[in-house]
């Protein structure tokens, strides 16, 4: 009897038998993920406005340590897809599995709790809290995920040093350049040591040299095993990924690994001096 109760209790926490790809290394998996917006602003199937399908049956997989980029024209549903995965929008239908656990059916509170521990988010417009210092912005994320003040401060110090922001700890975000703000946002996203980093157009609002800085950081993080799901229009950002998914009209049009290529010869097709 006791054994049964334990198994039942455990069953609530670990992946049920019906979970996709049990026992393999899928960190994130979606099945038939769909999002329908109503033009009158209501959600799901109940509203009276015209239905717009932003995401239409997307199957996606990210394995542990993988860097996956999602590209596609504006309006293709790529940002919505990331918002669904990050729990910022409720799904209309389909499934989201995070580390073997189905999350789309969790209560808002339960998902938020899971997200604080497992997911870091970086946005195009940084979304820093403007009336808090850089240090507090970064520490808040660690504190929310259950770190002690001391742990949060340590982690913040380490992250700011690594991202070249040590001198900026007491600055207000508005005093920083766009590139610096995005690095703070990255530090904040990493403060809870997330299993999965979600990035929505993180270079979309940066100039060329700040873009290069942020991309170098993403590459370095991934090199140390950070799993990343990046939504971007920037081909340079996408080219750092292990795999690029192309979204079109809310559906996956292509999903392909990126193979390293010898640069000089490849560059020849685009770099050409005219004479």
């Amino acid at each position, binding site marked *: 009897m006791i054994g049964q109760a334990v198994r039942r209790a455990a069953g609530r926490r670990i992946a049920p038998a019906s979970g996709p790809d049990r026992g393999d290394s899928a960190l994130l998996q979606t099945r038939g993920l769909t999002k329908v917006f109503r033009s009158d602003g209501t959600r799901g199937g109940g509203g009276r406005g015209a239905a717009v399908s932003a995401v239409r049956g997307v199957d996606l997989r990210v394995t542990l340590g993988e860097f996956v980029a999602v590209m596609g024209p504006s309006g293709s549903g790529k940002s919505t897809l990331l918002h669904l995965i990050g729990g910022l929008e409720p799904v209309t239908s389909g499934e989201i599995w995070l580390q073997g656990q189905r999350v789309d059916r969790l209560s808002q509170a339960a998902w938020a709790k899971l997200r604080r521990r497992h997911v870091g988010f970086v946005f195009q417009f940084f979304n820093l809290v403007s009336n808090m210092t850089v240090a507090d912005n970064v520490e808040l994320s660690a504190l929310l995920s259950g770190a002690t003040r001391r742990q949060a401060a340590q982690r913040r110090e380490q992250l700011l040093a690594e991202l070249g922001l040590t001198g900026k700890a007491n600055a207000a975000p508005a005093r920083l350049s766009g590139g610096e703000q995005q690095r703070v946002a990255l530090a904040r996203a990493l403060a809870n040591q997330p299993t999965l980093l979600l990035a929505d157009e993180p270079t979309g609002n940066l100039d*060329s040299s700040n873009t290069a800085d942020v991309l170098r950081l993403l590459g370095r993080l991934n090199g140390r095993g950070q799993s990343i799901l990046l939504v971007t229009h920037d*081909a*340079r950002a996408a080219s750092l990924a292990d795999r690029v998914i192309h979204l*079109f009209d809310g559906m996956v049009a292509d999903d392909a690994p990126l193979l*390293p290529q010898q*640069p000089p*010869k490849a560059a020849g097709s*685009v770099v050409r001096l005219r004479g």
Partner: protein
Amino acid sequence: MATDSPREGCGIVRLPLLALLAKEPAHGYELKMLLEQTFGQAYPSPNIGQIYVTLQRLERDGLVRSQDVVQATRPNKRVYELTPAGRDALAAWVEAPSEGPRVRDDFFMKLVLSPLAGATDRLGLINRQRRHYLSVMRGLSGLAESAEGSSVSRLLIEGAMLHLQADLDWLERCQQDLL
């Protein structure tokens, strides 16, 4: 570029060679090294054969002249210098605007005409091209990271990246309107 026909490869270096010779006379191998030093790793350096063929044609057209320089311990080398006609051609090149948009894009021709060749999978064609562009971009990103070189070579890489981004955007437009 390795895949170019010799003729195309030669056409592309004609005027850059004249420009290098405007500074001082030089032989073929020096010119090849100068090109590579100036433009860096991303530059698809012409092979030495293309350089020699181009110099011969420039000489035939009266834009350069050459003379053999005797070397004591090695074979003679042929040193080229600019003629007045060559200087005029160079000035005209520098003054004239360069070709703009690529209205003869090879991939676009392929995409539009592929049904005539019996190919029906246009999405496949677009996807393969996109993967190719992205892997070229990956190569350039690597070069950009390791580019210790001059701002000239870095700008060449950045220009190539911007072109690739435009090509990828255009690919999406093709996908929207042709599929």
